[in-house]
Each structure stands twice: as structure tokens, then as C-alpha cells.
């Protein structure tokens, strides 16, 4: 049975400098600030006690006041999994360092989040739309997305 590493388990492992950068913890994940993502990601991937070599899922949620990006990590060697998340409060130009240099599996998933949620991942090798076409107006998974009538030739982007 695989074990889930809860925040209390992670706090035992994290070094002090990273521990102090944690914004918040809830019952199943730790929350960090966007600028610290790369530092944490490198630690989770390389620390011999964690060895999170796979990113199972990377997704975004629009909570209106902020965007939350949720990372689900897994270590196949140790059969453990963990979750961490980060909040972005800037709605006009939300951006976040890309973790695709640490886990290649994040490549397409980050492009999907950019396409549907409009969060730009900096230093991503190919930050372009993936499911919708270039020139599509808006990001559908945002809560303030307005439906467009695609049958209306003047309106369809």
C-alpha cells in the first residue's frame, strides 16, 4: 500500500530554511509562495528521503481571489506520494516558474494549465496553447470566462 506523506511528515524532513518559507499547511498539503516553487521542487526530487521522481498531476484551480496550482508528486522507488500547492494572487498577468526542467512530465500539463487557466509558466521551453487554437480569446476554466457563440461569425475568435 502506498503511503501518503502529509504535511506533518514533510515538516520532519524539510531543512530549516525551506521550513521557514512555507506559507501555510492544511490537512493534506503544504502551501508555498510562487517564487519558492523551484527550490522546493528540486528538494522534493533530489532528497534521498523523498525521491519524488514523477509528477503525477499538475493542475490549477480558480478560487476567484487567487489561482491555486496543485502538484501531485509520487516516488515509485519508495511508493509514496505527496501534494504541494502554491497561490497566485495576480489576476492580470499570473506567472509561475516552470518545473518542466525538473520533471519532464510537467511539460504538457503546464501548457494545458496555460491554455485553459491562463497562467504563464516562465522558462518553459514551449509556452503555447495546446488544446485551443492560437488566437482564442480568454481562458475557459477561469470562473469569469464568458461563453461565446461560436455560430456567430463576427463573435467567434
Amino acid at each position, binding site marked *: *500500500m*502506498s503511503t501518503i506523506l502529509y504535511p506533518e511528515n514533510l515538516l520532519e524532513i524539510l531543512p530549516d530554511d525551506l521550513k521557514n518559507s512555507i506559507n501555510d499547511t492544511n490537512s*493534506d498539503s503544504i502551501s508555498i509562495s510562487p517564487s519558492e516553487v523551484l527550490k522546493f521542487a528540486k528538494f522534493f526530487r533530489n532528497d534521498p528521503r523523498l525521491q519524488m*521522481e*514523477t*509528477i*503525477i*498531476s499538475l*493542475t490549477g*484551480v*480558480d478560487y476567484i481571489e487567487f489561482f491555486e496550482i*496543485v502538484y*501531485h508528486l509520487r516516488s*515509485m522507488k519508495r*511508493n509514496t506520494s505527496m*501534494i504541494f500547492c502554491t497561490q497566485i494572487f495576480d489576476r492580470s498577468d499570473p506567472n509561475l516558474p516552470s518545473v518542466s526542467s525538473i*520533471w*519532464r*512530465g*510537467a*511539460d*504538457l*500539463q503546464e501548457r*494545458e494549465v496555460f491554455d*485553459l487557466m491562463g497562467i504563464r509558466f516562465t522558462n518553459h521551453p514551449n509556452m503555447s*496553447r*495546446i*488544446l*485551443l*487554437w492560437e488566437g482564442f480569446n480568454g481562458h*475557459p*476554466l477561469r470562473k469569469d*470566462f464568458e461563453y461565446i457563440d461560436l455560430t456567430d461569425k463576427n463573435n467567434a475568435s
Partner: protein
Amino acid sequence: MPLKTEPVTINLGPQHPSTHGVFRLKVTFDGEQIVDAEPVMGYMHRGTEKLAEERSYVQIVTLTDRLDWVSSMTNNLSYVRTVEKLANIDVPIRAQYLRVICSELQRIASHLIATGFLMQELGTFGGTPLMYCFREREKILDMFEMLCGARVTLSYMRPGGLIQDAPPEFWERLKIFTSEMPGYVDELESLISDNEVVLARTKNVGILSDRVAVDASITGPMLRATGVRWDLRKAHPYEIYNSLHFEVPIGSNGDTFDRYFVRINEIRESIKLINQAVEQIPSGPIRTEIPYFFKPPVGTAFSSVEAPKGELGFYIVSDGGISPYRCHIRSPSFINLTVLKDLLVGASMADLIVIFGSIDVVMGEVDR
């Protein structure tokens, strides 16, 4: 005197018989060799995640059918398990057994499609292995029809259990199926596994290393073909998988042949699993009743199952309303395409379709 060649960019798809949906591939060739490949997806994007935000938790089951339309059962299972985790719903034991039987039947059906079309794309037999595969798949679809009246878009599962119990005819047909199927698998394998043409076209073609596979979040038969023994049914047993015995077949090379071989062996293991589940299944209720418009508590849940193509997960955020605030689908086909370029670059033009076929993607799941 060496021939001077210029790179040529060719567009494959979006309408092409081998793309299993609508998928476009921009490929650059230098002579016969592929030097660059860029997948272009989204032609079948239907906004499933957005649609889910406007439907009740029970209605979303029908949306999940249409993700990977050759394995609706496992899509249903992954979704309902996430809702059950979110709302702490207990599932009766009989329903869990039936879910496992259905998932394994679906795995056989999906792997038959993958194998049949891979052989079709090799173009070696004029369709014989495909017809062998479809003959067996048809029997599975008939059994699904007995369970829920549908053959492909099943919607058989509900949060809390199943829509109805299996009729007596189902068990008779299942018994005949599981007793005959090992013979049919051997028959199918005798056509393929020792065939020199197949071996020449698939061995050492599209090699993926285990290191890259793990780094790029590859799951399912594609990961196991590289030699990584990782199967969620073993690593994190859900439903009643920990009371059943089975092996996890792995490959050694990570090439196209290994991906095919892992699938064929998984069919055999699935038959074993079904036999054990049929022996052990208890009688009892098949559903915990929940209201049609039920409201799970505020919170988030992520849960995944081993679908035929890899790890299918759902991440659901509930705000306490009748529909999810956010429903993310972690689809195996989409993420398995991360390494498509690695597999294709350096291969020859004739191997392109074979490599793409061996990844076994369904565009409904890639584009969602």
C-alpha cells in the same frame, strides 16, 4: 558520391485512419529519417472539465464515458472513486467485486483494440489479427449490454456502487468467456509473437528508456514495457485488488514489441483476476443509496486507478454545492504523448505509424 537531401515537413492528419481520432503531427523528414516531430492536439476538445462544473455529481458519470471510449468502465471507476473519497461513501463488497470484474473485462477489450490496430497499422495481414481481436471484444461488449443496456458508453457505475446487479445470464456468459479466452489469446499470439515480419518491424523500434519514462510521468503498459514494475493495482490496491493474486508483466527493452507483449500478458492476468473474483464474490447489496442531487462536504480529493492506458486520475474540488467547483482529469493518453518526439526522432518514415500505434492513445482522452 553522397546524395544531398533537404528536410521536408509533412503534415500527418488530423484526419488519418491511424490517428485514433483527430490528431495532427507535423513531421520533418531528412530523406527517410524523422528529424523533428511536433504533435498538434485539441481537435476533439469538448471542454469536459468545464462541462463538469455545471452538472451534478451523478450526471458527470456520463461525461467520463466519452473520455476514453474504448474503456468506459475504468473511466467510470476512477471518477466514482474520487467522489466516494470526497464524500466518504462506503461501497458494498459485492459492488467492489463487480467493479473489478468489469474493469478487467474492459482492460481485455481495450488491449485487444490496441493489439489489433497495431497489427493493422503494420499492414502485414490484411486485417486478420484485428478481426480476431474484434471477435473477442464483441463478446465483452455483449456482456456489458447485459449489465447496463449499453455497449460502449456504459455509465454502469454510480457514486456508492453500481446501477444494478448483474443478471444470471451474465454469469453464464462470463464463465464461457473466461474458459475460452486463454485459448484465443494463444491463438492470437501464435499469429504475432513469432512472426518474422512483426518482429522485424517492432523489435528495437521506438525504444524508450526507463529513466526517461519515469521522468516524463509515463504510466501504464508503456512504462511497464521499459522494465519498471509499477502497477497501481499492486502499489496502491483499490477496491478488492489486494485479495486477488496476479503478476505484473514487464518488458525489458521498452520497444514497440515489448509494449505489445506487455498488453498480451496483461490480458492473461486479467482473465486470472476475473476467475478469482467470480469465485470470491459474495451476495449482498450493490449500492449505497445517495440522493440524485447530493452535496459532498467542502474539500478536495485526488484518486486514480490503473486504466488500460495508464494512470487515470480525477482531482475534484467541492464547494459544498451540487456540482464540483473544479474537476480535473489526469488522463494517461495525454501525458504519455510527452515522449512522442523522443520516440519518433531518428526513426524511419515507415515506423512512424507503428510507434504512434504502440503508444495506444485515444483522442477523446487526450483532448478531453
